[in-house]
C-alpha cells in the first residue's frame, strides 16, 4: 500500500483553513456564521491517499471544495507543491486546474445531460487548448479504455448509463487533464456495493500507474481504511485525529474516532458479537452556536471540566495528531 509514497514536500498543504458561511446578516447583533471548516491543517504527500471521514454535515465536502477553490476560503492557507494558491484569482488558477482535479459525489448530477460522453471527456482538453482535434479524439478513446468503457459509448448520452458507468465517465473526464492531485468527494456513496468495489479498484489502479494523490472523502469507514494511507477524522468543522490509516482504524485515540470506528460493521459475526459499540449520548451542538470548549464535549464520554473551558489544540502522539485534552 505504501510503495509509492515519496518523502518530500507535500503536494497539498492546508494550513489553518477556515470556511465560514454567512447564516444571518447582523446589523445590530453580530452576524452569524456557520463554521463549516474551522482551522484545519493537513498535508497530502505525493502518491498518497488521505481519507477523510466524519458524520454528515461535519464539513468534509466543504473542505474538499475549498481546496479546489470552488469556495473562497475565509481564512488560512492552501499550498500546492509549496505554491500558495489561497488568494489566486480564477484566471491564475487556470493552469493549476490541470494538476488539481475533483471527482464528484453524484454521478447523475455531475455530467451535463445535453453532452455526449465524447463531448464530456473532451471538454477539459478543449478548455485548456490541449492537442489538436484529432489527437483529442484519440485521447478520448484512450481514456474510455482506461476506465473500462467501450469505444462505441462515445456518442451516447449520460442518461443511457448506470451510476457506475457514469462515475467512470466522470473519472475519465478528470484524468483527461493528467492531474497529480484529485479530490474524491464521496465518489462511491451514490453507487451500490458491488459497483463501489469496481470504482475503488479503478481509482487504485490509476494511482499505481500514474502516482496520483487523492483526498478521499467518504463515510464508509471500511472503504476509507482500504484505500487510504492516512485517515483524517472530522467533527463539526474540526480535524480531531489524523494519522496512519491502520493505526487510526485499529487504535483510535480520540473518543469520537473511537465511537466512529466501533460503529463500523465487522464482517465476522463472532467478532461482531464480542465487539462493543459505543453509543454516544447528548446533542450535537448547533453549528451556529458552537461551544467555547471542545466541540465534542457535549457528547464525549470522557468529558472533563477543562474540556468545556477552551478548545483543545492538536498534539502529536507518536506520529499521529490528536485534538483532545486527554493527550495534552
Amino acid at each position, binding site marked *: 500500500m505504501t510503495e509509492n509514497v515519496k518523502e518530500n514536500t507535500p503536494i497539498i498543504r492546508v494550513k489553518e483553513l477556515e470556511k465560514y458561511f454567512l447564516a444571518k446578516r447582523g446589523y445590530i447583533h453580530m452576524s452569524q456564521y456557520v463554521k463549516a471548516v474551522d482551522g484545519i491543517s493537513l498535508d497530502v504527500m505525493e502518491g498518497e491517499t488521505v481519507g477523510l471521514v466524519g458524520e454528515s454535515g461535519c464539513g468534509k465536502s466543504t473542505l474538499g*471544495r475549498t481546496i*479546489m477553490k*470552488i469556495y473562497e476560503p475565509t481564512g488560512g492557507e492552501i499550498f500546492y507543491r509549496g505554491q500558495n494558491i489561497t488568494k489566486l484569482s*480564477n484566471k491564475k*488558477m*487556470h493552469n493549476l*486546474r*490541470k494538476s488539481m*482535479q*475533483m471527482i*464528484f*459525489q*453524484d454521478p447523475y*448530477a*455531475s*455530467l*451535463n*445531460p*445535453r453532452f455526449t460522453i465524447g463531448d464530456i471527456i473532451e*471538454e*477539459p482538453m478543449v*478548455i*485548456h487548448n490541449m492537442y489538436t482535434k484529432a489527437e483529442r479524439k484519440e485521447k478520448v478513446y484512450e481514456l474510455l479504455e482506461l476506465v473500462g468503457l467501450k469505444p462505441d459509448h462515445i*456518442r*451516447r*448520452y449520460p442518461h*443511457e448509463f448506470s451510476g457506475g458507468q457514469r462515475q467512470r465517465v*466522470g473519472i475519465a*473526464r478528470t484524468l483527461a*487533464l493528467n492531474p497529480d492531485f484529485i479530490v474524491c468527494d464521496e465518489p462511491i456513496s451514490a453507487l451500490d456495493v458491488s459497483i463501489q468495489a469496481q470504482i475503488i479498484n479503478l481509482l487504485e489502479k490509476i494511482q499505481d500507474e500514474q502516482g496520483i494523490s487523492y483526498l478521499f472523502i467518504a463515510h464508509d469507514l471500511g472503504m476509507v481504511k482500504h484505500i487510504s494511507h492516512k485517515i483524517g477524522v472530522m467533527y463539526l468543522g474540526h480535524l480531531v485525529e489524523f494519522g496512519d490509516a491502520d493505526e487510526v482504524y485499529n487504535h483510535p485515540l480520540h473518543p469520537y474516532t473511537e465511537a466512529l470506528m466501533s460503529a463500523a460493521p465487522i464482517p465476522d459475526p463472532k467478532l461482531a458479537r464480542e465487539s462493543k459499540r459505543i453509543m454516544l449520548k447528548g446533542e450535537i451542538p448547533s453549528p451556529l452556536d458552537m461551544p467555547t470548549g471542545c466541540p465534542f464535549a457535549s457528547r464525549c464520554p470522557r468529558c472533563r471540566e477543562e474540556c468545556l473551558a477552551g478548545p483543545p489544540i492538536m498534539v502529536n502522539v507518536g506520529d499521529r495528531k490528536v485534538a483532545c485534552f486527554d493527550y495534552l
Partner: protein
Amino acid sequence: MLNKSEYFEPIDPDEKNDEFIAIESKSFFKDVCERFVKNKRAMIALVIFLIIALMAIFGPMISPYSYDGMDTAIMNQRPSAAHWFGTDRFGRDLFTRVLYGARISLMVGIVTAAINTIIGVIYGGIAGYVGGRVDMWMMRLTDILYSIPELLYIILIMLIFGSNVRSIIIGVCVAGWISMARMVRSQIITLKEQEFALAAFVLGANSRRILFKHLIVNSLGTIIVTVTLMIPQAIFMEAFLSFVGVGISAPMASLGTLAQDARTYLEIFPYQMLFPVAAICVTIFSLNFIGEGLNSALNPKGKR
C-alpha cells in the same frame, strides 16, 4: 451427485449478445420531437399554423387583388367566388387584406419574440449566474420597467417614431423580455448549484462557457416554451393596439386594423369583422397549443 452438464449447457457464444438490451441512443431533441409528434392536438395546431404562415407569406403574391387597390364599383360585397371574404367599404378584397394582415401580425409576433428572447436570456442568465448584489440590482431594474403601464410608453414611442410596425415592435419589446429574463434567471439559479456546473468550473471553464454551454443549454426547454407563448402574446398586443387605433395606419393593414375598420358597419356587414377576428383566434389558438405540446414534450414528467 447430479451431473451439472445434464441440466445446463454452455450458451452459444453467438447467442450471448442476444440478451443485450439497450435503448436506442437518442439525443435529447430527437426524443422531444418524437413525443411532440405523438401529441395529436399539438400536431394539428402545428399544421394549421404552418398553413396560416404559408398563406400569409405567399398568399398576397398569388392573389389577383392588391391589398390597397380600391374599386368603388364593388364596395361592401358579400363573400362570393370572386371575393372569398367579400370586400370592404372601399372595395378592397378582404381575403387579400386578411392574408396581408396575418403576415404583418406574424412578423410582429416573431420579431418581438426573437428580440425578447435574446435580451431576456442574456440578461436573466447574467443576473442568475453572477447572483448577489448584481442580481439584486438587475432584477430591481426589471421591476421598475415592469411597473410602468405598457400602453403608456407604447403610445409615447408611437408619437416619436410614428404609427408603424417598427414602433409597435419597439414598444412591445421594451418590457416584453422581462418575463423571459425572470424565467431564465430562476432556471440558472437552480442549475448553477448542480454538480455538472461545479465540475465545469473545476475543469477551468470560464464564466461564459459555463453560462452558455452548460446552464442555458440545459434550460433551453423552458426557453422554447416561453418563446412559443410569447409570439401569440405579441400578436394579441399588436391586434389590440391597432384595434384601439394606435397601431398600424392605413393603407397598411394588420388583423387588428381590419377589425377596427369593420367596427363602424358591424350591424350591416358583420362578415367584415368576422374574418379578421377568426384569423386572430385561430393563429393564437394554434400557437398556444403548439406551446403546450412542446411543454409536455420537453417535460414529460409533468401532468398531461
